[in-house]
């Protein structure tokens, strides 16, 4: 297993948000995390990422066989974890170009490498755009494309996407989906895929363009249901998350 979460309980500001999470993701797999607002989806992401505000009160997170529960965020990222945020903060005086250099392990004095320049153009960013302060005055779509571009600089082994298509117009959803595909080895046959991912999506629209192997429904701090993404989504579309509540009660 690439990522193994066992009996995970997490508190944020003294409040228990995640109660008992068990989740495993194998190499080459893409999983989807569904659930109503406030269920704890983002909390799970940020706990896997290791933000200090998320206190693990029980359980473990293993990545590549190593217990990473007590590692810092930067250490986890160095092991190969990446994330695209739904609404990242803007930072004055820190440009997209600066970040891309750091993420692709370049020296700050060097010019941005040709591969990154090409990828930036592919994601419809002009060279001048890269000098803007990150996320400062970006449109919804620019934020998402910049997040994906930064991930392409990192090429993590395991990538988490928090609502990668929200606020993105239809023509750019396909563009973003295609780059997500690159990050998740979708261009390779299933058996030779190595990179894995976990997608948070509200409406599941992005799943029309990115195939997923498994879906999980997070309800009230627990994974209430796991299975075939198409079937689960269909069920949620028909019955809402209430269906999942009933389903959870059966478990």
């Amino acid at each position, binding site marked *: 297993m690439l990522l193994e979460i066992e009996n995970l309980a997490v508190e944020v500001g003294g409040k228990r948000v995640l109660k008992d999470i068990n989740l495993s993701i194998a190499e080459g797999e893409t999983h989807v995390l569904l659930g109503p607002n406030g269920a704890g989806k983002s909390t799970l992401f*940020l706990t896997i*990422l290791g*933000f*200090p*505000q998320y206190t693990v009160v029980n359980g473990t997170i293993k990545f590549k066989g190593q217990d990473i529960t007590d590692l*810092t*965020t*930067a250490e986890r*990222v*160095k092991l190969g974890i*990446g*994330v695209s*945020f739904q609404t*990242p*903060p803007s*930072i*004055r*005086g*820190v440009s997209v170009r*600066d*970040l891309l250099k*750091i*993420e692709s392990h370049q020296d700050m004095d060097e010019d941005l490498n040709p591969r990154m320049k090409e990828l930036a153009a592919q994601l419809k960013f002009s060279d001048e755009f890269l000098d803007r*302060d990150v996320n400062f005055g970006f449109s919804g779509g620019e934020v998402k494309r910049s997040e994906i571009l*930064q991930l392409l600089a*990192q090429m993590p082994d395991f990538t988490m996407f928090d609502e990668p298509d929200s606020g993105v117009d239809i023509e750019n959803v396909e563009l973003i989906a295609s780059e997500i595909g690159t990050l998740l080895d979708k261009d390779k046959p299933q058996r030779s895929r190595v990179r894995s991912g976990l997608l948070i999506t509200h409406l599941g629209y992005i799943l029309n363009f990115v195939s997923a192997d498994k879906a999980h429904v997070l309800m009230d701090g627990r994974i209430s249901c796991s299975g075939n993404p198409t079937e689960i989504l269909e069920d949620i579309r028909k019955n809402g998350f209430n269906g999942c509540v009933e389903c959870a009660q059966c478990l």
Partner: protein
Amino acid sequence: MDVLSVRNVYSDAERAKDKKAPIGADVTIENFSDEAVNAMDLLDDLDDVDKKTKKTLLKVGVDTEENNRSGSFLQVDQSNIFTNNSISDSIEVMGMSVALDKYKWLEDYLWKVVKPDADKYTAKTALREQETGVTSGYFVRSLPGTKEVMPVQACMFIGDEAIMQTAHNVIIAEENSELHLITGCATGDDIASAMHVGVSEMYLKPGSKITFTMVHNWAEQVEVRPRTGVKLMDDSTYINNYILTSPVSTIQSYPTAYCDGKNSRAIFQSIQGGKKDSIIDVGSRVLLNAPNARGEVISRAVSQDESKIYSRGHLSGTVPGVKGHLECHGLVLSDDSMIYAVPELEASSANLEMSHEAAVGKISEEEINYLTSRGINEEDAESMIVRGFLNMDITGLPDELAEQTQMMIDMSVDGM
């Protein structure tokens, strides 16, 4: 200046010699000694200064090789030891005493936008001029209709222990001319304590532009009291950039721009980095006194260690149709330091537009998290955020000068 007004300057100064400044810690002037005026030998070449001084000067933007400069001036303690007036045909650079000999009319520009009785520091400067018969400081003037893109560099350097350095500078941009200045102030490495008072009066004639970029690099026990007044006539533009990121004992300044001409525009941008137990009290004031005048005051302050920063700004609109904006952002990096933002807007006419934006706080956790999620460790993330915060875009400089200024800022900010 006629006899009567000369007498007025000195009598005003005499009366104000014990007058405390309205803000800032009171400095006991008597603790510092007067240095003999022009007692030092002149340098033939600016590059003749010793290696250590050279390095210090470079930090405040003064290039001893004078590359890409249109003129140079260096005052050490109370002596003008170097002036280069021959680089540009458009610019005049002289010691004040030389300039006053050459131009009788220059007296009309003395003590007009800074008053001799403003406080005991201006009074001391005026009285010293009377006692010694010498006006220290520099005179820089751009000739009518000229645009010199290279900057004049001027430096005030303190090399002797426990002295009080005074200077009285006059800068004039004649009609439709453009003038750029880089002024650096610094102390020698071995100076423990000293005091600096610099009176600067600037005049922008119709259609002219001055950019004035000042970098301060004082020692930890130096008291600094610059006094600056700027008069703007029709269609003129003044841009002031101020950078301080090294420790100082106390600094208090509140440069004031008088936008007296229509369509005149004053912009103040400052970067204040508080370290150790520095007390920094720096403000900028723009008086919008003519139709369509514009004022902008932007400051970034970061406090570390036990430093205290008072970041002030004052816009005053007195006629209709003026616009002003004040922006004051502060980051408090240590629990023992403090930032006190004082933005003031004053409107005494209907139909004008003034706004301000002030925010003081600690480094945002969300920003640190974002950077750590890109593999940057927490400590590096913090310093990136601080550097980014301080690294504001300097506007209004010619390309080459903008590049150099950016380098100066980077250098100052890197040390934070």
